């Protein structure tokens, strides 16, 4: 479904992604793990077109999307749930969701489908239905995250990019969010690329994983195998390993 070859992304002079290659099959949950600053969010942003890569190739369903504008990429079926939710707090829950369907707002024929999608999202997150008229600013952290995911789903993506969905949430709320992500993958067959600070939870949920280190992929494998990998264990415990061969 997704194929990335030799992606190189820069912030000015800073080489943030170095020759990254990655693939995803339809229906998979793939997680990206790595320390802060390793380039996880950058990779998501390169995929969604927010920070276009300077080199390399991204194929989505065999179509190159490497230098497309973000809105065109959304149209092709990739939606991103940004880090920190980025919800419009003065707007109601309902309006926030509707913004996610921005792509379809002109087409009359889409109105019905958009409503259906919204209903599906309310079913997935009953609490959002309860609060649909409430201002988003009054929601709790977990509810905001649900709204953020819901908003991304309004564009009816085939590939969902999730950036740190559990950030700032109480463990029990985070658990709930993970459950939703798993259900989403199982029921709607949405393909999910997940960046998560809680690497253990992410690997338990994912089929496969990639490990990023200072902009380079250093490991690919089945999520269960990565959980057993000592280097991964060190990396996601966030401990700074000072081995003699550390460059």
């Amino acid at each position, binding site marked *: 479904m997704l194929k990335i070859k030799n992606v190189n992304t820069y912030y000015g002079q800073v080489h943030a992604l170095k*020759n990254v*290659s*990655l*693939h995803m099959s339809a229906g998979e949950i793939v997680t990206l793990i790595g320390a802060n600053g390793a380039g996880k969010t950058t990779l998501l942003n390169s995929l969604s077109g927010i920070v276009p890569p300077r080199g390399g190739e991204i194929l989505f369903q065999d179509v190159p999307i490497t230098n497309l504008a973000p809105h065109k990429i959304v149209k092709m079926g990739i939606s991103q749930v940004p880090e920190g939710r980025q919800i419009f707090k003065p707007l109601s829950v309902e309006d926030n969701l509707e913004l996610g369907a921005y792509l379809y707002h002109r087409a009359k024929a889409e109105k019905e489908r958009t409503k259906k999608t919204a209903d599906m999202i309310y079913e997935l997150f009953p609490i959002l239905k309860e609060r649909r008229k409430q201002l988003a600013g009054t929601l709790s952290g977990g509810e905001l995250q649900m709204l953020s995911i819901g908003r991304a789903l309004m564009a009816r993506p085939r590939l969902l990019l999730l950036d740190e969905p559990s950030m700032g949430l109480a463990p029990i709320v985070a658990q709930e969010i993970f459950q939703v992500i798993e259900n989403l993958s199982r029921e709607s067959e949405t393909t999910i690329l997940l960046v998560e600070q809680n690497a253990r939870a992410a690997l338990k949920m994912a089929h496969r994983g990639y490990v990023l*280190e200072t902009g380079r*992929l250093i490991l690919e*494998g089945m999520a269960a*195998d990565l959980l057993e990998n000592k280097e991964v264990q060190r990396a996601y415990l966030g401990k700074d390993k000072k081995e003699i*061969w550390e*460059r």
Partner: protein
Amino acid sequence: MNIWDEKNECMSREEIEQLQLERLQAVMNRVHKNVIHYKKIFDNLGIIAEDISSLSDLSKIPFTTKSDLLLNYPYGMFAVPLREVVRIHSSSGTTGKPIVVGYTKNDIKTWSNLVARLMTAAGVTRDDLVQIAFGYGIFTGGFGMHYGAEAIGASVIPMGTGNTEKQLMIMQDYKTTVLVSTPGYALALAEHLEKMGINPNALSLKAGLFGGEPWSEKVREEIESRLMLSATDNYGLSEVIGPGVAGECSCKNGLHIYEDAFIPEIIDPETGKVLPAGHAGELVLTTLTKEAFPMIRYRTGDITCLDYTKCACGRTLARMKKIMRRSDDMLIIRGVNIFPAQIEEIIYSVAQGETPYQIVVERKSGMDNLEIIVEITDKIFALELQKQRSFQENVKKQISAQAGINVDVKLVEAKSILRQNGKITRVIDKRQI
């Protein structure tokens, strides 16, 4: 026809290549970071992992040879700290020191699954009784095949090598269905069977997995007709993982290389240039999934060629022909790798100086036999019979201790070994493999 890991054995060429590229880039990053040897070499040549943007870029990277492994004896090639290694095996080097290889917990799992693939391809199922007549111990053969058979869920009889009569008794009484051994040992078993007057039809054998040494189609026919089983070849080497690099399917038309775990290349052994598919040359392997002991472009010394056409079994993996010969002078005796230089070192050290000698390899009733003929020189062997005997014993003992095989040592008169242009041919291999 059963396939153990359909997802990884039946990918499209495009999928295999994408996966290989991802894993190659990752392993290059890992070895550059974690293996002192590669860090030194890459830094000297100015190679960075980002130089690999396609699989063909692999040819820009230098080879890893057996002497690199010896220079880094014992742990210099490890990519993880020793505390993460759960198993250590060895294989013979070109000199006295062996090559040390290590496995993490994940590596053992990977290895088991690779062997399970070749066993499944050879027809082994969970209902089988697998008799493993490979050496258990520091060599990879026994444990590698054992873990693979267990992964499938077959019943494993860990016999080890030798003790032919007991092997046959167990084969008869326990109703062994699958034999795992070297092809040479299979022939020795067949011979013994005939001597004892046992009809091979009375055995329950259905499949035989033979590896550890090169063998021909002729030997296959012979084993199949004498033991009444279906014989398949499998390939591996300790430096790369052990058994589990490649294995034949029931089509018996080449060994499928597990390309999600290894990238095979064929090179001209003289120039080191990569040869196109179909050309015979030396097999070079790069590991993609190993954690403890990754190898980049390891020169196996085995001559073969690759075939990327589709196999009738459904696997999309490239196939390598049965090993044709070696590109170096390594001898494989009963599945054990021996280098003539190793033997020379021992003879010279026991004789305390250079001594004319010759190595003769023969196959006697299916089993390889290595004989060392040493000329009695005046300076050392103007000794009484007693001391000559102890010389013989010493050479035998040293070779058995260092190389792990028993050899015959014969002393002959000075100047009695045939010389051509004044030179002795060091190794005479009389086996018709």
